[in-house]
């Protein structure tokens, strides 16, 4: 799910950036530093949308750098366990398939794909029901439920399932 939240960060600024453009320099450095990063707690920072306030700077001993506490609004993407969302299939193999929902990767193991879907290898590997009516392949859109997340310093990785009511393929590129 995407959220609009306020975060705070202490920004260190070199004295050469002081002057009337100080605030602009601070903001552009903040964007460069923060956008595109990921933390386990807040998820992926997609875009900064505004600055709430810039606090009083504090000169660091010895270096001349100044630290400013900056409060900013941003759009983040944070997946949650139990959340249901839509995703695009990026890779299919006999272990299951990978899908992407925005910046996050989700793996659906073949144990969590309905039992009536069989893996078919070939140049377009896919999972298909025995009657051939439903097919999951690269670029399919699926609705899945996140059942687990693994968080490390710079990445969030999810495990999902489509073995539940109202989950599975939403549209099939081959049929369209």
């Amino acid at each position, binding site marked *: 799910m995407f959220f*609009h939240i306020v975060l705070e960060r202490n920004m260190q600024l070199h004295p050469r950036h002081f002057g009337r453009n100080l605030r602009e320099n601070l903001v552009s450095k903040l964007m460069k530093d923060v956008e*595109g990063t990921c933390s386990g707690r807040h998820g992926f920072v997609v875009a900064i949308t505004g600055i709430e306030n810039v606090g009083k700077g504090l000169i660091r001993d010895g270096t001349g750098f100044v630290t400013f506490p900056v409060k900013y609004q941003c*759009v983040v993407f944070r997946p949650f366990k139990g*959340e249901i969302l839509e995703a695009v299939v990026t890779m299919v193999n006999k272990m299951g398939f990978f899908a*992407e929902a*925005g910046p996050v990767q989700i793996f659906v193991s073949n144990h969590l794909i309905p039992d009536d879907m069989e893996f078919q290898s070939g140049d377009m590997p896919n999972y298909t029901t025995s009657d051939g009516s439903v097919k999951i392949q690269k670029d399919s859109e699926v*609705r899945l439920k996140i059942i687990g997340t693994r968080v490390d310093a710079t990445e969030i990785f999810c495990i999902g399932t489509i073995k539940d*009511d*109202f989950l599975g393929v939403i549209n099939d590129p081959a049929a369209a």
Partner: protein
Amino acid sequence: MSGEEEENAAELKIGDEFLKAKCLMNCEVALILEHKYEQLQQMSDDAANHVSQVFEKSQQYVKRFSRYKNPDAVRQVREILSRYQLAEFELCVLGNLCPETVEEAIAMVPSIKTKGRAHDDEAIEKMLNDLSLIKKFE
């Protein structure tokens, strides 16, 4: 980390910080990112090179999965859903997935049926009807 271990969106356990935060539906994110991208384009010619991979992927994703394209419709969806005493998170899941039946809505957002909340099937049905009307008249 102990707080995160009990995290479960189906029961609306997403941590205080996110529960109080403003959630965004995909269509809203699409509008925000579009706007931001235009701003970047005005500042420099090669805006595409300046955006992060996360930005790019999110933008592609929300474009693909936006149910409502028109900004007015997006506003209406939020307005209508907010009449039903939903949590922000629930509102956005419903707005993103647009379930068609009451059963489907409950499967998508199990927390609307938890005890102590005034959502009977009729109210949910009415809500889904209102939603599908916006889609129809967009």
